[in-house]
């Protein structure tokens, strides 16, 4: 018994160290956002100081605030996510149910094409968007983001769909349900977790994206990643405000993550062990 408690103590100790490693930098960012600019660079670094909310105030209400940028980001991320899910889910389902020899290589190709390094994509996308007049517009940037998120979403979802035995739908069809009804009422609930996971990743990628946002956005479309970078302006870096902005920018994703957490765990559980290996 004593060995057990000793073992547990070691485990807890290791766990605590690891937890610390992950949270201390974040905690430091929180501390920084509450400091005066002068305090931020004090050395030795201070943990006790006079906290102030003025950085948050400046970031949200000041002359260079990020409210418009947050709105921009929300629109882009929501649109990209919604459109991706709406297209990817049926597509993944259909793809999973196809009985094609070419399925695997085609699936691989679809995934592989999104491995093109960003540098190779900037110029072609820039030219395309200009050609169709969608430069510096929401539809343009959302379209570009979807070219990343669609293959990823489809790839992620297909394996979960394949997991669901065809017998389930056959049963529904025998009950004279249409294919669509079978899909909606029988199949979809099973993959709720996977969809939740996909939503998180697609949203996160769209939300945190920087390079394309800078090049393809402009006066109209300015997501928060670009505006955060602008706290590193040409004369100085406003560390405290940058920290405050970064924390605020993290909030929507964290909220989304917490909300979908239940689904994520069940979702990952279902697919992780069995289904994914099937292909």
């Amino acid at each position: 018994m004593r060995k057990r408690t000793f073992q547990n103590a070691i485990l807890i100790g290791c766990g605590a160290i690891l937890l610390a490693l992950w949270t201390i930098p974040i905690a430091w960012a929180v501390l920084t956002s509450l400091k005066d600019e002068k305090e931020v660079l004090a050395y030795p670094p201070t943990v006790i100081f006079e906290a102030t909310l003025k950085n948050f105030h400046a970031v949200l209400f000041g002359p260079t605030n990020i409210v418009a940028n947050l709105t921009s980001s929300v629109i882009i991320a929501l649109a990209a996510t919604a459109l991706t899910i709406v297209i990817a889910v049926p597509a993944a389902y259909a793809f999973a149910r196809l009985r094609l020899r070419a399925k695997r290589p085609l699936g691989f190709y679809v995934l592989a094409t999104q491995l093109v390094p960003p540098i190779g994509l900037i110029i072609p996308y820039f030219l395309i968007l200009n050609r169709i007049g969608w430069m510096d517009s929401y539809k343009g940037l959302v379209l570009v983001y979807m070219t990343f998120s669609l293959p990823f979403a489809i790839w992620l979802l297909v394996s979960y769909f394949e997991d669901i035995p065809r017998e389930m739908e056959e049963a529904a069809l025998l009950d004279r349900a249409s294919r669509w009804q079978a899909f909606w009422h029988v199949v979809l609930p099973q993959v709720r977790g996977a969809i939740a996971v996909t939503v998180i990743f697609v949203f996160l990628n769209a939300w945190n994206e920087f390079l394309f946002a800078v090049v393809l956005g402009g006066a109209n479309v300015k997501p928060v990643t670009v505006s955060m970078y602008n706290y590193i302006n040409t004369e100085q870096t406003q560390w405290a405000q940058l920290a405050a902005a970064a924390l605020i920018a993290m909030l929507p994703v964290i909220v989304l993550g917490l909300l979908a957490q239940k689904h994520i765990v069940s979702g990952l559980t279902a697919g992780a062990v069995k289904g994914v290996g099937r292909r």
Partner: protein
Amino acid sequence: MVAPGVLALAATTTFPLLYLVWQSLQNINLAMPGMDRYVGLENYVRMWDDARFWAALGFTIVYAASTVLLQLVLGLGMALLILRIPRAQWAFRIAAILPIVIAPVVAGLFWRSLMLTPDFGVVDFASKALGLGSHNWLGDPALARVSVIAIHTWQWTPFVFLYMLAALAALPSELYEAARIDRASAWRRFVHITLPLIRPAIVVVVILRMTVALSAFAAIYAATGGGPGTATEILNLYAYRVSFAELSLGYGASAAVVLLAMTMAVAAVLFGLRRSS
């Protein structure tokens, strides 16, 4: 249902790919427009002799391999650990979300200026306090490489942790009961029962993390810019510099093509592993 979707997808992703390859066969230099011309495989030939390219390629492999391996070991280890302390799970799960959701560019910046600056940063302060002395974390070439790997690992291990946690939690407990009755040790239980069962999950997470590691850009760009010198210049960054800083778009495109080929090769190998399970 799927045909139009996949077609549109293939179209939007194939065009840039073809354009990229076409660009890599040209000499396009924005500084000297009069010299733009088709050069066939000359860019690739030049790359063969380019020491900086090989250095970038080498470091890309080292970077991707080490960070993915570290993420796997640490993430899996943590997941196994946390399963033993179920009461603390919620704290870890919440803490794990945080590094993942920071924009990589912000992470790189923070680590560079607030954490790792010798004599000024928090990490440096801590290392001095622990008696490890101050080091030039981002200025010394070898240390800089370690630092950027560490930053990437810091940001993404929680992802592996969460994924593995879910995978492990789904394992049926009867298997463990049976093994315990047979008085198998914890290690043997792990190697012979757990590992094979979660192998598919491991492969998936390795694919996901590997593709991200190979195309990492924002964090390294913000932390070191590829420096000191060219020590932390992964291929992605090298291609960016050549294209945009040196304005040699054709050569940059060829570097990007090589990176793409490499990524696809790695992905193909990993996919093969999946199938054989």
